[in-house]
């Protein structure tokens, strides 16, 4: 298996405050990796650093190419789709416009149109609401829209920041089922940041646990889920 994303000694700063203290991890092509940790551990910062939305030092390589010093909008062009915390919905625009925006860097019009239909097949509720303003969707529907918008890029890697946040347990199950399917069928590598460790570990094949800006544990998701000591001390269940 080839390494798709390689992060080495990543340090990130908000003004004078250091949020990541030399974090290293890697992600294999085709894998579904989860990054777990408590509030404030640095999960979101890690994703933001990958997309250069926060000042950082250290090495970030995607498919062997360095991402440092690339602007956020150019990193997207490598095929990295980021679903930010809070979903980043364009609330004043229609559902369909949100999907078109996901593909704004692509030039193949026919492909975009057929991909929109593909998203409607993945998420039938979006088709029902395609002319509706995205802000009027429920939280779960907006999360589906955010995932669909990210997929419109035809990404090689999808970064998801707490997709379960604020959603009802049943909706979360549904969403995670779809993520697994996307990972297997569309061969999209996924890095998902979660507080809902139990669910994330069921879904993922690889897991990292971070605490105060450092990786404290890594391994196969199954092994971490089965290790009671880790679960109790870091994941709280």
């Amino acid at each position, binding site marked *: 298996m080839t390494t798709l994303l390689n992060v080495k000694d990543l340090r990130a700063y908000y003004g004078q405050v250091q949020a990541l203290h030399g974090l290293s991890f890697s992600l294999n092509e085709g894998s579904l990796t989860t990054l777990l940790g408590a509030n404030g551990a640095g999960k979101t910062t890690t994703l933001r650093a990958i*997309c250069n*939305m926060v000042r950082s030092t250290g090495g970030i390589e995607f498919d062997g190419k360095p991402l440092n010093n690339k*602007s*956020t*909008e*150019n990193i*997207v*062009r490598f095929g990295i*789709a*980021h679903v*930010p915390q809070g979903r*980043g*919905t*364009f*609330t*004043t*625009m229609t559902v369909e*416009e949100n999907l*078109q*925006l*996901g593909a*704004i*860097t692509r030039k193949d019009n026919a492909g975009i149109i057929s991909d929109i239909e593909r998203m409607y097949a993945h998420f039938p509720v979006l088709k029902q609401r395609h002319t509706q303003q995205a802000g009027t969707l429920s939280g779960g529907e907006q999360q589906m829209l955010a995932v669909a*918008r990210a997929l419109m*890029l035809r990404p090689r890697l999808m970064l998801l920041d707490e997709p379960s946040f604020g959603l009802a347990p049943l909706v979360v199950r549904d969403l995670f089922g779809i993520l697994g399917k996307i990972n297997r069928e569309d061969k999209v590598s996924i890095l998902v940041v979660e507080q809902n460790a139990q669910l994330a570990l069921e879904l993922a094949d690889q897991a990292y646990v971070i605490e105060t800006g450092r990786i404290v544990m890594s391994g196969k998701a199954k092994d971490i889920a089965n290790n009671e000591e880790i679960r109790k001390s870091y994941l709280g269940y």
Partner: protein
Amino acid sequence: MELFTNQVLAGIATGAIYACMALAVVMIYQAIDHLNFAQGEMAMFATFISWQLMQWGVPYWGAFVITLALSFVGGIAIERILFKPLAKAPVLTNVAGFIALFAIINSSAGLIWDFTIKQYPTPFGSAPLLGSQLISTHQAGMIGVTVLLLLGLYFFFQYTRIGLAMRAAASVPESARLVGINTSWMVALGWGMATAIGSIAGMLVAPVVFLEPNMMGGVLIYGFAAAVLGGLSSPLGAVTGGFLVGIFENLVGTYIPGVGNELKLPIALALIISVLVVKPAGLFGRPIVKRV
């Protein structure tokens, strides 16, 4: 009744100009969250350029198109040079920037073309339209050009990818960057378009108010009134506000004794204040809600 119809039609004609100014103000407000106090002066300067081109023998529509192109480039240049570096600066710094821009453009125009009032031609003529006393051909032309412009902008923003990208960049900049939109250039593009729209307003209104460096002062205040009335967050509101302010101004001037020409401008200001007190988001604007 004829007086009423006449005043309403004339109001729609000047309202078209206010609508353009309001639209230009709203476009920049959407892009950078600041009111461009220099919008009128930029339009005035563009109008002078078109006048100069005509003095050099360029026909009206040629001068019109060249001026639009120059305004577009000029607007982008102003954004890149002056306001991009101020993007993260406090509000007052930006306000100072706009006032400086206002003074610089106003004085430069006076220096280059002096402050005497100049005639400005109209391509539409000023005869009564179709023999009717209700509206002149120039007024009809003002309405016609504005309607074409608005339709063009509607199609641009609704049906082109770049229009979609500009709307996305204005509404949620962070998400726009995450789908790969260069938001910084979208802001510059917004400046270019707003400047070109303002220059259309300047060239259309110049035959009425005559060409001189202070010609847009009153027009811009009405434009602000229109933008505030319609809602600063809504381009559609700005346009509607423009037509409403134009009609309102004329009717008040005609039917309320003692208002006349001198008191028309304070009425625009009174309108701004009333809207801000009664309905701060304007007719079409959405109130800004922040989660805390």
